[in-house]
């Protein structure tokens, strides 16, 4: 079996992806930023930076800070607002010819509903990713994502407002991720994505102050991968929905950990900063792995580590 013959396509809640490799929200801008460096059209899909109803200026700097095998960010959802997004960003995104998944964030359930309704009017949007888990804004964001009842309500409300496939993005900053997953399922989500960043902080010991102006930020990168894989594993056990797994993916081997733990697709985030070529390499190496291990369809590996033997 030649690598070219491996079937890398997956079905994500009715969305057919030619390969399971997406780019994570907030780490790939609106696609064009990386267009000189990456053949975006070869990705399984793109998840855009979080969009809000109104434009947001975001948090004051410093917004990021490096940590061991990771980074903290507190961007604070800087974005031009949904109308500018539709006019200025969406046309270029559409040109890539791949599924565009729009990440949306709000301060109230109504915000989410309005965003979903507005974006449903646009062509060329493949799905919505409900960001219930942004740790870096004062209102909304993670406040929804850590509460089961709120999660269910918001997802339910958005569900009524759109016929687009709905992917709910979960926060890892919770005691019981499986409960949140069930709440999102009960609200009617088509798929789940996890994990968003872990809440963290750094202290600038010279200045005796938090390094980030926002005090806390979201931890991403390889450091969080074991936590992310564990949560994908738990959620795969708890609900019967497709999962987009993410958190520290730097290689095909990392991506396969998520897939075998139960993810249908994966999203690459921080790794894009470290190496813009990473997604292309992962797609290639996934095919090589499948070929070398006699796997005809990568979909056959989804949840493979949950076999009886390993329980």
């Amino acid at each position, binding site marked *: 079996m030649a690598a070219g013959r491996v079937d890398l396509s997956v079905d994500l809640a009715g969305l057919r992806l030619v390969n399971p490799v997406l780019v994570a929200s907030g780490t790939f*801008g609106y696609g064009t930023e990386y267009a000189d*460096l990456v053949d975006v059209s070869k990705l399984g899909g793109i998840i855009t930076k979080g969009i809000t109803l109104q434009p947001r200026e975001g948090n004051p700097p410093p917004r990021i800070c490096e940590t*061991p095998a990771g*980074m903290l960010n507190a*961007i604070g959802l*800087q974005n031009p607002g949904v109308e500018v997004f539709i006019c200025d960003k969406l046309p270029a995104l559409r040109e890539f010819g791949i599924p565009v998944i729009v990440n949306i964030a709000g301060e109230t359930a109504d915000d989410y509903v309005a965003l979903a309704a507005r974006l449903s009017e646009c062509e060329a949007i493949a799905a919505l990713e409900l960001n219930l888990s942004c740790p870096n804004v004062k209102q909304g964001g993670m406040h929804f994502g850590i509460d089961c009842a709120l999660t269910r309500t918001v997802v339910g409300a958005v569900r009524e407002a759109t016929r687009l496939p709905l992917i709910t993005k979960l926060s890892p900053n919770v005691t019981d991720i499986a409960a949140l997953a069930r709440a999102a399922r009960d609200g009617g989500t088509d798929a789940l994505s996890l994990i968003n960043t872990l809440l963290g902080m750094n202290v600038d010991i010279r*200045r005796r102050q938090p390094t980030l102006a926002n005090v806390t930020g979201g931890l991403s990168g*390889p450091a969080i991968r074991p936590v992310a894989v564990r949560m994908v594993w738990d959620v795969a056990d708890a609900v019967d929905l497709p999962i987009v797994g993410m958190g520290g993916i730097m290689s095909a081997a990392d991506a396969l950990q998520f897939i075998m733990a139960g993810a249908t697709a994966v999203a690459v985030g921080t790794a*894009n900063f470290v190496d813009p070529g990473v997604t292309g390499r992962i797609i290639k190496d996934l095919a090589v792995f499948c070929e070398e291990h006699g796997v005809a369809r990568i979909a056959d590996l989804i949840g493979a580590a949950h076999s009886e033997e390993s329980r």
Partner: protein
Amino acid sequence: MHAQTVRLIHLKQVGPDCHLLKFDCPEVANQARPGQFVHLRVTAGCDPLLRRPFSVMRTNPAEGSFEVLVRVVGRGTEMLAQSQPGSEFHVLGPLGNPFELSGPEGDVVLVAGGVGVAPLIFLATALHESERHRYVRALFGAGTEDDLCCWLELSGVCDEFTAVTEDGSAGETGLVTDFLPEQLDRGAGCVYACGPRAMLAEVARQCQAAAVPCFVSLEQWMGCGVGACLGCVIPTRASGVGRYQRVCKDGPVFDAAVIDWEAMRGGCGPG
């Protein structure tokens, strides 16, 4: 903009913690403009994880190489300084907006602080080689004589050159900004500056008072280097979505008049 693996062909210590690194990379050598930077991956592993940005100090298109001046301040720069010629590094570049060479009429004044000299050497070289020859006066400040890294490279391409050290071990004694007023008094078409934030703020203040256009090259911690993550912003005087601008994409060269120097004072990033 290119992304590729390049070879370190030469490495030389040029100051107490400063090293000049030359890389084999025809693409950056041909395309980089003064003020632009490269984003360098220091290790194939994940310690440190993120790339490190460095201004291009010199290109040699004939040889297909470019040089950066690196001051050792932490783990990433330490690893660069310790590396062996022949080692390979992944580089993204050239990135960011260059200095405008065709600035307003009149003399050009350069103000460099420490390793901030790097992009100004590139700028002075370009001005020196440009058809429309402009008179360039440079101020270069550092702590001590030893810290005036690559001053010969700068003075060689300027019409006037003044060194300033805090301890008086070379040139004038004091801060480089102590000597800017007389430069501005003599009249200047435009000031270009790079160095520590406090220095840049003072340069900006003096230029604004003297109504001389001023362009500064700023630093901020970076994630992507290409404008995607919105991590590297600095505050400007605009409000709304335009308030925070990206050093990597909207800069690193900014018109000093648009920067919100007050907000920078709180300490909103390196330097």
